[in-house]
């Protein structure tokens, strides 16, 4: 149970509530009994199907009933139907899940059933347009997933579902459209790490496929994230994304040493304005250590010593600026002295 305030009822109020619930409880129990009995005797009729609808409207988390509903469809209703009729039934089932998702956006069973329905869509409407029905659904699915993300931009069910839809559509949407989508989400709230995460996945995929100029788009990302840092230097989404952009060991672009030095001095500028910024300090330590690890050989002894002692100094400040994670900074300065 999440976000349900504790309310203390008097004994009388509690008894009254029990009384009110009694009718609902009785209905739920007899309906459950009836549906489970039909399931037991493998009743795959339309009547059984309608009863599952009623029960799932009361309790959409009742996974056994969703399972039974699918059995009724597969072994009963679909068997006697034309492709057009099957398509109509699935269309109704998708509507049912849309309604339920609006009330219960985080119930796994509903999302699962939705995905199952889509996989069942038959070929059609005609032999020459076999993907017609499917493509129409998939376009709508994207809309549904994005609507859900308007209601709750962090709903990971909706993000997962959206990724699934994008990957499965018979006619794919260009991935670059996803960059515009995630940018919109980030611009409306830079704390939306789900959007930053998705952006990292899309960019990786585009770069790997050679569909995007990596060097240039990286620079655009650095601009985006730098703006976000200045907007709210305490927002950790931004710093985590920045760390991905610099990419510890993942990919080395062009002048890696120059890039690290540039990012360190850009964060240093922000730290000069915000001298207590934990995230600035933490990131500078991380990137300076990265510089030492990757380019230690090309640095002189003086330079290495200087970087190490700067890290030590920052780790010392971090212990007082961020006392909750004090021990981490102690461990970092103890274990990670890079020669």
């Amino acid at each position: 149970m999440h976000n349900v305030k504790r309310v203390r009822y008097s004994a009388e109020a509690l008894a009254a509530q029990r009384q009110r619930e009694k009718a609902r409880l009785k209905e739920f129990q007899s309906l459950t009994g009836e549906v489970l009995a039909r399931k037991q005797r493998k009743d795959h009729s339309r009547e059984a199907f309608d009863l599952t609808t009623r029960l799932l409207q009361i309790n959409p988390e009742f996974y056994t009933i969703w399972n039974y509903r699918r059995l009724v469809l597969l072994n009963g209703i679909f068997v006697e139907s034309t492709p057009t009729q099957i398509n109509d039934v699935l269309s109704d089932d998708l509507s049912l899940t849309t309604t339920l998702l609006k009330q219960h956006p985080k119930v796994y069973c509903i999302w699962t059933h939705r995905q199952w329905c889509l996989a069942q869509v038959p070929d059609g409407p005609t032999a020459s347009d076999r993907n017609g029905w499917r493509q129409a659904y998939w376009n709508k699915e994207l809309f549904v997933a994005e609507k859900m993300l308007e209601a709750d931009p962090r709903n990971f069910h909706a993000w997962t579902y959206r990724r699934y839809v994008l990957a499965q559509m018979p006619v794919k949407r260009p991935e670059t459209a996803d960059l515009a989508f995630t940018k919109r989400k980030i611009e409306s709230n830079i704390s939306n790490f789900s959007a930053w995460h998705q952006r990292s996945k899309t960019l990786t995929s585009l770069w790997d496929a050679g569909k995007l100029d990596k060097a240039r788009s990286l620079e655009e990302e650095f601009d985006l994230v730098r703006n976000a840092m200045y907007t709210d230097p305490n927002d950790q989404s931004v710093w985590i994304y920045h760390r991905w952009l610099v990419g510890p060991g993942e990919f080395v672009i062009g002048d890696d040493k120059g890039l690290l030095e540039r990012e360190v001095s850009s964060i240093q500028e922000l730290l000069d304005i915000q001298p207590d910024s934990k995230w600035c300090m933490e990131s500078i330590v991380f990137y300076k250590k990265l510089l030492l690890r990757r380019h230690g050989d090309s640095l002189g002894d003086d330079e290495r010593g200087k970087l190490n002692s700067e890290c030590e100094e920052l780790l010392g400040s971090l212990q007082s600026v961020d006392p909750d994670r004090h021990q981490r900074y102690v461990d970092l300065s103890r274990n990670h002295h890079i020669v």
Partner: protein
Amino acid sequence: MGPALDIPLHVKYIQSLGENKDDLVYHLTAHLRMNAVYWGLTALLIMKHKDALDRDEMIDFVMSCWDDEAGGFGAHPDHDAHIHSTLSAIQILVMQNALDRVDVPRVVKFILSLQQDSGVFAGDQWGEIDTRFLYIAVNALSLLGHLHELDVEKTVGYIRRCRNFDGGFGAREGAESHASQVFVCVAALAILDRLEEVDQDMLGWWLAERQLPNGGLNGRPEKLEDVCYSFWVLSAMSILNKVPWINAEKLTAFILSAQDPEQGGIADRPGDQPDVFHTIFGVAGLSILGYPGLDDLDPVYCMPASVIESLGLRKGWTALPRRQV
């Protein structure tokens, strides 16, 4: 100073859960009953009150949920078998020393049949996939002594593909890191002795940053605190030997402040309605934090450490030392 852990009250709360049969909510949560029994029993064991619930009655309930068609356990009599309720059933029977009641080869077959070509596991024959189900399979096979039947490379391969640049793991390939998915992936890797797959410094950082100024832990960046993350985050930190990277005192106080001082039980956050799910994960968190008077919890299996030790399954995790009152 905040409140202490009111063990007698929480024991009473857990006992009362089976007595609310006139409540609509009791019936509306029937699909979670097996899990709820596992949560309640584990909490009682950690609070050293194993006998507060009747052993025979509990074992009879578990066995009444056997789904003979599928070869697994459902959450409730007449409910379909699912991998999640099957693990809870096995965990209960292990804690009650009654595993001899189970047709082990059939359950093993059921679990293994749910592995997909990608390496992940489905929850049941309907194919919903999630790294949670992968962990459940690994945990259950390990408890049943049948881990050797698992295709380890295939399984680890899937976890690897769910690893994100922040060191965390998501529910599926491509999904955002989330503390509960981090727990399941790290714990599965621990059971499979494959923790080298984890970028421990990066993940340790991400986990430590789950703590908010009020002491509570969240499950993802820029989200609210919730008592259940005390377990998801702490268990992973404990497996990586990094519990000292957060402020234990503040987290302890946060969990204790979410107790219901009248009816017992722990809620997601202070002032909310308690439930058995947050009660076990609050108690589990306190155990890892070394709270006095509790038994050790094994963070890999979320069961009493003594039970896991007796099976010879203990891994190299560390919790904070148990404090004396």
